[in-house]
């Protein structure tokens, strides 16, 4: 089992060991980079199909189920028609986007227009490098500043959004970019503050250390994930909401609100550049989900100690899958917020909640000697109470109505 768990690590070490001493660090890095660049885009490809299938099922339709392997009757006459339940769709989409005409508006700022998708993609891919996807499987363990690196990389994507929106010379793009930036800046604060609780408790900015800190065991079988504490639970949901907004997912998909802004900041992109934006968006979602998993859901740790025999990377990707499924589920259900409501929500609800959560986390830290149940209850009560108080303002304003009938 240990072997399977560490199979990729051993593989890498094996390859590296063949090389001369001087090349080893370089090749080691290159292998990690290649792994990231291969695995996550592949995951993206699968996700697009899964998302469409899942949304289809939510909406009572089968979703894509036609495209499988091309038959190529001249080459393989014996090959039957394989539909693979529609999982060939992503290849078809990819080929389509590659072969489509790349249209650049006449008035666009060509250089910036060209650079924008790459400026989006590069930081997002960089962000993956600090995520530990399994035991000993972080491409880069920044002992000092792992989390900070992640957020710095995330902050750089805003620039790309602006570049795309501004250079297209399209009003929808511009409005979409303005919305996206306003939203990303606003939601970065709750995002950082909610992850700050974890940093406080783990006492480290290193994601690897944070995962290791969660490996404690409760009740003899349950791993001590942060989500099993009141501040971790609240923090996880706050993080999830903020992550949703950072990744521009429903109900916070205003920047690309189809019914209002056509496609938001990438309205004027077509062909492969559009695909890159799409890829960047999804990779951003994966990265931020991966961060959520690392911070709150125990990273690559299994949920129960008796499941420890399963490989650690399996658990990471399984959790990632669940997170993405949750995002798809949200997308299939919820309508979209309005910009001012979005801002109000960020500043008047999320921010106070995250601050209170910080206080609760501090309380948790200093009541270490208390009875665990009491400690739990105290945190839960504090958080529920503040949630209720903050939610009341909304409920006073908006509520379902009852209607009268004409006599």
């Amino acid at each position: 089992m240990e072997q399977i768990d560490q199979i990729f690590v051993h593989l890498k070490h094996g390859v590296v060991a063949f090389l001369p001493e001087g090349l080893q660090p370089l090749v080691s890095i290159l292998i990690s980079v290649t792994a990231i660049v291969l695995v996550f885009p592949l995951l993206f490809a699968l996700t697009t199909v899964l998302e469409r299938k899942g949304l289809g099922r939510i909406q009572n339709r089968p979703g894509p189920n036609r495209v499988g392997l091309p038959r190529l009757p001249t080459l393989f006459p014996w090959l039957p028609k394989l539909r693979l339940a529609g999982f060939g769709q992503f290849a078809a989409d990819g080929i389509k986007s590659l072969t489509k005409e790349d249209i650049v508006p006449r008035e666009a700022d060509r250089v910036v227009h060209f650079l924008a998708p790459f400026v989006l993609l590069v930081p997002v891919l960089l962000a993956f490098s600090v995520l530990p996807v399994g035991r000993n499987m972080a491409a880069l363990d920044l002992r000092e500043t792992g989390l900070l690196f992640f957020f710095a990389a995330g902050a750089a994507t805003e620039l790309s959004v602006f570049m795309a929106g501004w250079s297209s010379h399209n009003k929808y793009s511009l409005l979409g970019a303005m919305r996206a930036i306003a939203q990303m800046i606003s939601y970065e604060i709750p995002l950082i503050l909610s992850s700050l609780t974890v940093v406080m408790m783990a006492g480290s900015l290193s994601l690897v250390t944070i995962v290791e800190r969660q490996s404690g065991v409760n009740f003899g079988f349950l791993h001590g994930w942060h989500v099993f504490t009141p501040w971790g639970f609240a923090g996880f949901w706050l993080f999830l909401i903020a992550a949703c907004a950072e990744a521009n997912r429903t109900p916070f998909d205003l920047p690309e609100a189809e019914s209002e802004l056509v496609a938001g900041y990438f309205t004027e992109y077509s062909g492969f550049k559009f695909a890159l934006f799409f890829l960047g968006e999804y990779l951003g979602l994966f990265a931020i989900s991966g961060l959520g998993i690392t911070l709150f859901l125990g990273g690559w740790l299994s949920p129960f100690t008796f499941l420890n025999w399963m490989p650690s990377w399996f658990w990471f990707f399984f959790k990632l899958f669940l997170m993405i499924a949750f995002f798809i589920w949200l997308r299939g259900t919820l309508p979209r917020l309005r910009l001012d409501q979005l801002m109000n929500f960020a500043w008047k609800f999320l921010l106070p909640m995250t601050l209170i959560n910080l206080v609760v986390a501090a309380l948790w830290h200093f009541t270490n000697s208390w009875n665990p149940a009491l400690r739990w209850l105290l945190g839960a009560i504090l958080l529920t109470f503040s949630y209720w108080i903050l939610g009341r303002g909304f409920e006073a304003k908006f509520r379902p109505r009852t209607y009268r009938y004409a006599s």
Partner: protein
Amino acid sequence: MLGSGILKGLAETAKNFVGSYIDESGLTTIEYPDERQTLAENTRQFPFLVFDGDDAMKGLRCVSCQICEKECPPQCIFIVKSKDKKPDHVGKPQFYPATFDIDLSVCMSCQICVEVCPFEAIKMDTEFELSTSDRFGQLLLHKGQLAKPNSHFQEIHPTDAAVSDAALAADKAKAEAKAAADAKAKAEAGIPRPLASSPEAVTIPPALGPPNLPM
């Protein structure tokens, strides 16, 4: 509490998601080329001209009265009346359409031509795969492409066909009775005159069962 409505909605979509795997009847999608829906009997797509017998051009019921051409709302029917006449199903000599074109790209499948036709000559087809690769030539359908046998009509619209066949049979019976009476009268008068046409020219398919019409 804030969020309860969202949770309710999520539960609903989850129910539908799971339900779509448990009970496939909720999925209304029909995977078209592989699966085909049985069409309702009343389905109407595009008109066709009914003919009796085996020879399409000979047995065409249309007498080129041009009512449909006049009534057609988008004016997609084009008829040129013939110079000569040929016998219709009761044996009466009638004009026939020398040209009968319907423009598929203009037709809006309203069925008014069928309703106004006094000769049961034009009916609606249920064929809907009408696309062609040539938008100029092949969308204008000519008489030869439009003519379809009565058996086709009986197959796609059995109820309507029964009514129409009964009406035609009644017509024919009446005409034959009249002809017989005429002949008798003529015979009685002692001046034999030939019938307008030879009865072999008209072949009428055996009428379907008795017209038990749901009214």
